[in-house]
């Protein structure tokens, strides 16, 4: 049992570190994107930023509780496309949310722990909704991803 727990635990920790990395990247992306978004989208971006900050804090606290050192943010991230206007800024946010969705889905796949599954599903669901908004703003169709988190 203890070896099984250790294995589950290691998997869960790895998944949480990975998802923390995508949350760092998402926060960096939002900080960059707001400079290019129109005012009404800036308001939405701030709400989303707050949500990501909270997720990041929760993951970091959780990892710390488990005796793990939470991974740090990179100083900067490469954007898949240059961010030069509102559409490309929204596209970056859609990408960040897509990456986050994949990492959250992976949390579900890497831990059978029920409360963690609940938390992961909540995060995946909220990420999918944010992703839909930014895909819509970027003109990507369909706005709602069909299988959020599937890579």
């Amino acid at each position, binding site marked *: *049992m*203890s070896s*099984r*727990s*250790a294995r*589950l*635990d*290691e998997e*869960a*920790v790895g998944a*949480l570190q990975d998802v923390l990395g995508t949350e760092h990247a998402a926060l960096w992306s939002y900080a960059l994107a707001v400079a290019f978004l129109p005012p009404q989208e800036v308001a939405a971006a701030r709400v989303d930023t707050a949500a990501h900050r909270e*997720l990041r804090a*929760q*993951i970091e*606290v*959780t990892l710390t*509780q*488990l*005796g793990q050192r939470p991974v740090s943010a990179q100083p900067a991230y490469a954007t898949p496309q240059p961010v030069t206007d509102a559409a490309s800024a929204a596209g970056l946010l859609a990408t960040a949310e897509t990456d986050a*969705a994949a990492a959250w*889905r*992976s949390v*579900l*796949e*890497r*831990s*059978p*722990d*029920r*409360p*963690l*599954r*609940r*938390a*992961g*599903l*909540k*995060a*995946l*669901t909220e*990420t*999918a*909704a944010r*992703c*839909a908004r930014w895909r819509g703003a970027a003109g990507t*169709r*369909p*706005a*709602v*991803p*069909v*299988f*959020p*988190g*599937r890579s």
Partner: protein
Amino acid sequence: MNDATAGRRGAGTPTVGVLVDRRRILQLALVLPVAAGLGGCGAATDRRTDRPDPLVALADAARADAALAAAAVAADPALAARIDPLREARTEHAAALDAEVVRMGGPSAVPTAAPPTAAPVTTTAAPAVTLARVREAVAASHVGAAELVENLPAERVGLVASVAACCAAYAEVLA
């Protein structure tokens, strides 16, 4: 790292509980779960071969939603732009869920009766299908899929979670 973690766990489920309590982070969705996961074994591998595959009902619900979406657009073509993506998504969900059912269970899984939500979908039904009704259906589908996520094995949970998240997003978008 491994030893430290294991040692702490051996002595330490109460310790973890105390830490969690002291820092008042029980309300944080993520914290309690992993702490609980330290001591307990997850039940996510639970799968009984004598029960019907729960994904069959999800696939049926996906088909029902797609049919309902089509009926809503038939009743009001102006809804097409909003609802067609949902119809396409739910059609894709049904196909993916069907494939997973077949992969796991083979033919025995296929002929299960459709759930009640699948029944009232005929396009000629008396009251026109409204956007609100489509939204209600997809919101219910979100709940149905989300309820399974805690207990599914690793190889299935991602698909069902993605279906749940997509349905939730549509319920929000169509509100």
